[in-house]
């Protein structure tokens, strides 16, 4: 479903020329940026809260091994089971095994980026299960056989008309004369279909925003209540999430919740905050024996980031503020990245999760404007992490690579001021004529001239003129 991240430039180019996508992206400012700013303003001491969130997440990552073992014990004590998955394949198999043992066919799902990361839906379909997304945005992109384009608003790339058309194509029982213009009509249409799925599902899968080691709980925020239904209605509930989501206890998670909702949607709190600990107790018998609760904990490259410059990215609480404030994401949207996590957090994580060779564009396609780090609720130094990936990429490049040769030549000259004066004297005179150069020989110049004129230039260097003046 997702595109090839190595085709980033081509995908970005298409995205820039797609007027419908550009219309959708134009809503980021009013939808996310302003709302966050207002929520931060209302809160007051948000910077202090960010420091606190940063410290909580740092402690959690530093004690990851202990907290995870404690979490497992706590889950077991409540009658649940924990399944460890080293990679995507093990995670998918673990989920399928649980479903088979439970005799489940239809699986309703709450929104979870980790299940996107491991390609769970496609796998479950191949294995004969029927996964149904129940978050409205996820449901829409599932119908369209697309990947989410935003980590908290999966269908952000779409406009109301696109969604209406998707429903008309997928919901065959939909009367042609029924109006699907208003947002409320679209929601009602989805709700009517999803309600049936909720009632008949055998198992529910959700993600988790946080795991708390002391209580063995998974904390989940939604605005649609679909997470609760996915947990409460079926007999089997599976939480699928990454190992880095754990924190010490609910009190620490509550600090992170205050940061998360304000940073994500500008809400003080989401409509639903669900604390999921152990199997759901059946009302009639208060008997948990008929219900089961599983947590699948996925590493999938995360522990490789420990001890590297990218470790700080594991603090992420997936609020998407970095996406919403990123001018590159704002220009091209999420699909162009061709990976589960787009935007700055993707640029920091993807080289670790899917490999630097595949994700090479992500840390490079940034101006280092720094707005992502400025708004990050847990103060992840995102540009610094992107830079560290660039350094690794540079190091891995063969010595005869064009870029390495270029930098070595440039540095050779720049480290010899007299030679540099001579070279820049000539270069300053040549600039007005650069447009006549064969541009294939100078890819950076060709890039500059793609949509821009040559820069205005004096023709003489400052150092030459200054020396003459003295």
């Amino acid at each position, binding site marked *: 479903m997702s595109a090839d991240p190595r085709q980033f430039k081509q995908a970005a180019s298409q995205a820039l020329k797609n007027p419908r996508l550009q219309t959708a992206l134009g809503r980021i400012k009013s939808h996310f940026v302003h709302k966050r700013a207002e929520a931060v303003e209302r809160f007051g001491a948000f910077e202090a809260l960010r420091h606190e969130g940063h410290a909580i997440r740092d402690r959690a990552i530093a004690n990851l091994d202990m907290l995870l073992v404690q979490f497992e014990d706590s889950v077991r004590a409540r009658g649940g089971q924990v399944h460890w998955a080293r990679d995507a394949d093990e995670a998918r198999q673990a989920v399928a095994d649980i479903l088979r043992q439970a005799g489940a066919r239809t699986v309703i799902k709450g929104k979870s980026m980790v299940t996107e990361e491991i390609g769970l839906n496609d796998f479950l379909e191949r294995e004969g299960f029927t996964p149904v997304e129940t978050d409205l945005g996820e449901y829409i992109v599932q119908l369209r056989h697309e990947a989410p384009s935003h980590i908290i608003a999966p269908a952000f790339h779409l406009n109301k008309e696109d969604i209406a058309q998707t429903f008309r194509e997928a919901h065959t029982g939909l009367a042609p004369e029924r109006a699907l213009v208003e947002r409320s009509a679209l929601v009602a249409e989805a709700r009517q279909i999803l309600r049936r799925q909720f009632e008949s599902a055998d198992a529910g899968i959700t993600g988790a925003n946080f795991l708390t080691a002391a209580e063995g709980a998974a904390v989940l925020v939604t605005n649609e209540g679909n997470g609760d239904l996915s947990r409460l209605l079926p007999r089997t509930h599976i939480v699928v999430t990454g190992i880095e989501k754990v924190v010490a206890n609910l009190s620490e998670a509550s600090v992170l919740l205050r940061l998360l909702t304000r940073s994500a949607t500008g809400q003080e709190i989401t409509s639903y905050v669900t604390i999921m600990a152990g199997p759901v107790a059946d009302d009639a018998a208060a008997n948990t024996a008929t219900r089961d609760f599983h947590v699948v904990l996925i590493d999938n490259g995360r522990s490789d980031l420990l001890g590297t410059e990218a470790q700080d990215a594991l603090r992420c609480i997936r609020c998407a503020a970095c996406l919403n404030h990123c001018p590159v994401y704002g220009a091209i949207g999420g699909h162009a990245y061709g990976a589960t996590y787009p935007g700055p957090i993707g640029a920091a994580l993807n080289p670790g999760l899917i490999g630097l060779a595949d994700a090479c564009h992500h840390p490079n396609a940034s101006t280092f404007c720094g707005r992502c780090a400025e708004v990050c609720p847990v103060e992840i130094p995102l540009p610094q992490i992107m830079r560290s990936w660039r350094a690794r990429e540079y190091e891995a490049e063969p010595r005869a690579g064009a870029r390495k040769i270029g930098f070595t030549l440039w540095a050779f000259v720049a480290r010899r001021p007299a030679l540099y004066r001579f070279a820049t004297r000539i270069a300053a005179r040549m600039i007005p004529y650069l447009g006549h150069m064969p541009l294939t020989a100078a890819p950076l110049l060709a890039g500059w001239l793609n949509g821009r004129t040559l820069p205005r230039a004096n023709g003489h*260097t400052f150092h030459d003129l*200054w020396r003459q003046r003295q």
Partner: protein
Amino acid sequence: MSGKERHVGLFVTCLVDLLRPEIGFATARLLEMAGCTVVVPSAQTCCGQPAWNAGADDHARALARQTIDAFAGLDYVVAPSGSCAGTIKRHYPTMLADDAAYAAKARDLADRTYELSAFLVRICGMNDLAARTNTKITYHDSCSSLRDLGVRNEPRALLAQIAGTELCELSDGEVCCGFGGMFSAKYPEISTHMADNKLADVESTGAEMLVGNDLGCLMHLEARAKHQKRNLRVRHIAEFLCEAMPEPDTGKV
């Protein structure tokens, strides 16, 4: 602006050196007006930022050490750029943290280094430029000025001293213009898209001139505006201030 004479090393920046020496001369003039003795160390070239941002760390460190040596012994270092000043002030100490011979020197240089407007306002207390124009301008904050250096009020404090200047603020002043050094050449379509957003914002202010403190952003926006045949004048803040004053000495030949 009185007191002990300040010896200020002018960090010219490679873009000003190569393309627009006028900005360097305007910077020197402002520093001299503020009572500083301006020194231009000849051992300076580039601060190393292009290499650092590209991950060519060894080259970046070599240039950082060269810059540190070139400006040793001066009271202050001033650059007409938030980007280069930011590299020296914020990134040199990180870059050379493990270099026994240079870590302390890097921190020392960082403490002495300023972006031009911040230096003129915070250190020199420049508060009466006695100049005038009749221009409606808008001001572009570079990301490094805003977020590396916390420079936002200082350029405005200088512009406010020029009588007849009407400053019309951008509505999205926090947003990057899309230059980003090599980014502008490596991802030109995204870069120019971001420039278009900025230029649309500039246009909606009704300003006839765009003023900023980073030549990188300015040449990118100017070259995009020119490509689209937009009618927009672009000036570095040092040039703008000097052009508003009598007897400009901008080093034109």
